[in-house]
């Protein structure tokens, strides 16, 4: 009997322990029951990894049967009798493949990730940042202010119904694997979630913090130098709106010597402190300068081999698995026939083409976010702010953060002035005005784009409704027209017009006083040169339009490179467009390598002359192309880093968290001034000129590269080993991520690979607008969000190789051959 009692006791302990571990997560280990259950747990994700060859679903609200054919690239072609049925089907098919991604992205925009993933510090931090930026409030206002009688609202509602129809059909077995690992279940979709997601996208694309950079620089080297180092205009002019120059123009630059710290800026920086600086920096999205890299260009029939207009686009965003994009084709006879990519959760095609027009975007980088130092009634808990001598009530909004079971884990109080969210930055109350928080018609713009029939019509319809995030919209049509317009709300500011200074919030005269007229937007249409392009650079030649649109522009190296390629090709083909998208050539290297070699070869009296000769030999062997197998690009990149370190020593000399380092555009501008005092490394006793500093940088670069990668033998310095892409899963789950993916490109190339490798071309598309439209495309991922599906990452290798698929664009389902049909889904009305 005693043995039996002991056995029972042991069994009880085992049962309680397993029951607990089965039902509740323990630390990082998810609840084991939901994971290990072979019928409903993680294992069952294998059962739903692939689409059934045939499926039929009844759906409420559908007007008639809607057919969806998945082609052999896993792209759903929706053939619907009405537009609303098409949007309903779109919601269904996107949710079918990307449900978890939709929920996570929407929650990221709503600041409710803790309700999905738990209240860890990291997750809570993300939610707090989202709410401090005012994004959930802005999305709620968008939903509230939407015209619910409009056609585009009906489309959003139909899309929502499609998503919810899919969610309702699910059993726990069918939940995406991430839900199982988190112990969560899908929540119903709503138009609000679509708006949350779109506002979040705006943050990714349209937040820059030039104010902070300029303040930092002024606090170090004075305002005069800072104003030139972070000038309003790019010193290398290769604008989006074609100008009179045949090639890039290097404007002369008068860079004053480093001056005494600007006392006002220093006082602000010191009062902000490191925590305050971090708070302000949080307004900026996580993309670094090297992360920016979107390209687009269009070629007129006069320069294309087929005599049809060609268009190419590759928006660069943070890479993720599943991809940010989902490829889809929607057909409603006589009304809609659009192919392209949608953002899961956004109810429509964002980039793509119809039978008449193709369109794509790059980010403008315009300054659409301003800061104001506010005067408040109570520094600890303000309820009012001063405006023109009178106290105005602040809008107070409590923000509650909850765990998945509904427990409130934190409450914040958010305050808003008429400009936008108000934040306490180390005792100073600073408000922000930002176009992304005020825009509410981006969906309407995309919906209008899908049914446009001419390039100009598309540009105009977008400009009539689209505000943010400001985008360089490039179009090409079947009639052979090409056009580009930097579309978005560009504020007009008072006095100097500058938006890169913090303004006094107590004066309404510091508010925006208007917006640019569409005619003033940077734009081009059927230029005589026969092509248009944009690569996030300053869109206007300051000689044509000197008004402030932004500062701290993206470097124009990519623009110079693509324009050089296009100028040299008078018979461009779609294949050439594809090759250009991953062109390994670099205008940056073409500019700097001769300068560096000149310095190395002139350094005969340098203390390390022997080493300099070796650097010159090694660098001279480089063909200035960032191919995967290249073994010299690493030395050039190290040299450029060293140049930046030594040249801008005056800006790195304090304890500020992030030194305000100018881009290599400024270095390029200084090259023509070899004796400028900035070339002197103030930390060493001899006074260096340009060549002396460059020689020191080259020696340090060689030492550094050898120390890190070894001697330049074998594949030690192979570029693909040094730089590669990191495509992280949305939850950063390593087995679901694809890391170390080789890429062909480096800083300043058309495929700029970044230090961390987390950003890159998120969708590549080439379109030929002939009588029969032809398209090619790919993205780094796959259509499925299921990590165990062969459709999850089946395009990564192709993307890495710079290859594109030929896109199938059938007008009817019959135009797809049996071999081209992968699966079929029939939606029928539920009576």
């Amino acid at each position, binding site marked *: *009997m005693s043995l*039996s*009692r002991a*056995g*029972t006791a*042991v*069994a*009880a302990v*085992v*049962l309680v322990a*397993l*029951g607990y571990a*089965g*039902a509740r997560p323990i630390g990082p280990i998810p609840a*084991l*029951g*939901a994971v*290990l*259950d*072979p*019928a*409903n*747990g*993680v*294992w*069952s*994700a*294998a*059962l739903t*990894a*692939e689409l059934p060859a045939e499926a039929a679903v009844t759906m409420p609200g559908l007007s008639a049967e809607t057919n969806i054919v998945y082609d052999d690239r896993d792209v759903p072609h929706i053939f619907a009798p009405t537009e609303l049925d098409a949007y309903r089907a779109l919601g269904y098919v996107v949710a079918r493949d990307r449900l978890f991604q939709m929920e996570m992205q929407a929650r990221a925009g709503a600041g409710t990730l803790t309700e999905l993933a738990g209240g860890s510090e990291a997750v809570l931090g993300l939610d707090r940042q989202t709410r401090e930026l005012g994004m959930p409030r802005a999305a709620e206002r968008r939903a509230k202010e939407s015209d619910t009688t409009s056609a585009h609202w009906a489309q959003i509602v139909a899309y929502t119904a499609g998503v919810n129809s899919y969610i309702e059909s699910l059993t*726990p*077995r069918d939940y995406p694997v991430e839900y199982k690992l988190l112990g969560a279940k899908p929540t119903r979709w709503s138009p609000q979630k679509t708006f949350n997601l779109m506002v979040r996208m705006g943050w990714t694309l349209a937040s820059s913090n030039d104010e902070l950079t300029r303040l930092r620089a002024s606090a170090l080297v004075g305002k005069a130098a800072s104003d030139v180092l972070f000038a309003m205009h790019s010193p290398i002019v290769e604008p989006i709106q074609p100008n009179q120059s045949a090639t890039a123009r290097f404007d002369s630059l008068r860079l004053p010597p480093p001056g005494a710290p600007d006392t006002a800026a220093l006082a602000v920086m010191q009062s902000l402190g490191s925590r305050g600086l971090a708070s302000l920096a949080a307004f900026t999205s996580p993309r670094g300068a090297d992360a920016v890299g979107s390209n687009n260009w269009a070629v007129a029939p006069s320069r294309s081999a087929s005599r049809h207009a060609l268009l190419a686009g590759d928006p660069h965003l943070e890479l993720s698995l599943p991809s940010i994009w989902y490829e889809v084709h929607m057909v409603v006879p006589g009304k809609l026939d659009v192919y392209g990519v949608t953002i899961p959760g956004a109810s429509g095609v964002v980039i793509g083409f119809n039978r008449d027009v193709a369109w794509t975007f790059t980010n403008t980088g315009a300054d659409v976010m301003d800061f104001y130092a506010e005067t408040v009634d109570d520094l600890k808990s303000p309820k009012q702010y001063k405006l023109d001598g009178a106290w105005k009530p602040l809008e107070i909004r409590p923000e509650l953060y909850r765990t998945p079971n509904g427990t409130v884990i934190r409450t914040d109080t958010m305050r808003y002035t008429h400009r936008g969210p108000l934040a306490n930055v180390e005792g100073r109350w600073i408000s922000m005005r930002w176009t992304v928080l005020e825009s509410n018609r981006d969906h309407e713009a995309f919906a209008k784009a899908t049914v446009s029939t001419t390039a100009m019509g598309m540009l105009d319809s977008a400009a009539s409704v689209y505000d943010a995030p400001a985008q360089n919209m490039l179009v090409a049509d079947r009639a052979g027209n090409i056009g580009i317009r930097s579309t978005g709300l560009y504020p007009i500011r008072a006095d100097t017009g500058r938006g890169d200074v913090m303004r006094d919030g107590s004066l309404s005269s510091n508010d925006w006083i208007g917006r640019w007229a569409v005619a003033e937007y940077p734009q081009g249409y059927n230029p005589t040169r026969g092509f248009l392009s944009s690569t996030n650079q300053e869109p206007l030649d300051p000689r044509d339009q000197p008004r402030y649109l932004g500062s701290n522009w993206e470097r124009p190296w990519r623009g110079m490179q693509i324009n050089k390629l296009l100028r040299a090709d008078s018979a461009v083909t779609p294949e050439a467009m594809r090759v250009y998208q991953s062109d390994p050539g670099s205008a940056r290297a073409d500019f700097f390598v001769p300068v560096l070699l000149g310095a190395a070869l002139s350094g005969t009296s340098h203390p390390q002359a022997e080493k300099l000769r070796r650097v010159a030999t090694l660098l001279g062997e480089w063909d200035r192309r960032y191919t995967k197998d290249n073994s010299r690009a690493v030395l050039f990149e190290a040299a450029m880093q060293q140049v930046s370190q030594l040249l801008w020593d005056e800006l790195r000399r304090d304890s500020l968290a992030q030194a305000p380092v100018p881009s290599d555009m400024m270095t390029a501008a200084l090259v023509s001034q070899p004796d400028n005092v900035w070339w002197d490394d103030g930390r060493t006793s001899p006074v260096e000129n340009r060549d002396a500093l460059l020689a020191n940088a080259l020696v340090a670069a060689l030492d550094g590269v050898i120390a890190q990668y070894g001697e330049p033998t074998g594949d030690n310095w192979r570029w693909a080993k040094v730089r590669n892409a990191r495509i992280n899963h949305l939850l950063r*789950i*390593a*087995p*679901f991520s694809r890391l170390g993916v080789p890429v062909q490109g480096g800083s300043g190339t058309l495929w700029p690979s970044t230090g961390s490798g987390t950003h890159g071309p998120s969708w590549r598309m080439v379109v030929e607008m002939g009588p029969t439209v032809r398209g090619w495309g790919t993205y780094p991922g796959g259509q499925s969000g*299921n*990590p*165990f*599906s*062969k459709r999850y990452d089946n395009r990564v290798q192709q993307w890495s190789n710079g290859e594109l698929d030929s896109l199938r664009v059938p007008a009817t389902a019959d135009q797809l051959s049996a071999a081209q049909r992968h699966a079929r889904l029939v939606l029928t009305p539920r009576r």
Partner: protein
Amino acid sequence: MVFIRVLVLAALMAAATMFLGWVTVPILAAVFALGVRSASAPGEAALAALLGWGALLARVAMVPAFSTLLPQLGSLFGAPGVAIAAFSIVFAVLLAWSAARIVTGFVIRNSAGSAAG
């Protein structure tokens, strides 16, 4: 007879897991032990769990995506995928055995108590 009742219990466990989830395993095992009233019930319940969940896992293993899932799941938990599969079955076996063992312990003790009384 024992073999058949184990098979029936295995089928019930598989079906109940599919429709109601993993918590049905110890519940069915406990009910089984209550009905069988035998010292062998925990072992039989454990065997049934092994067969039931083994069949469910075998079903999953038939689909092509399993070959992707197995190593990824292993990587996720820092163990070979096969070990995770084995652990899944052990999880069910232990749930079934422990629930049945507790019930059997009480049943036998109560029976012994009644007989002594």
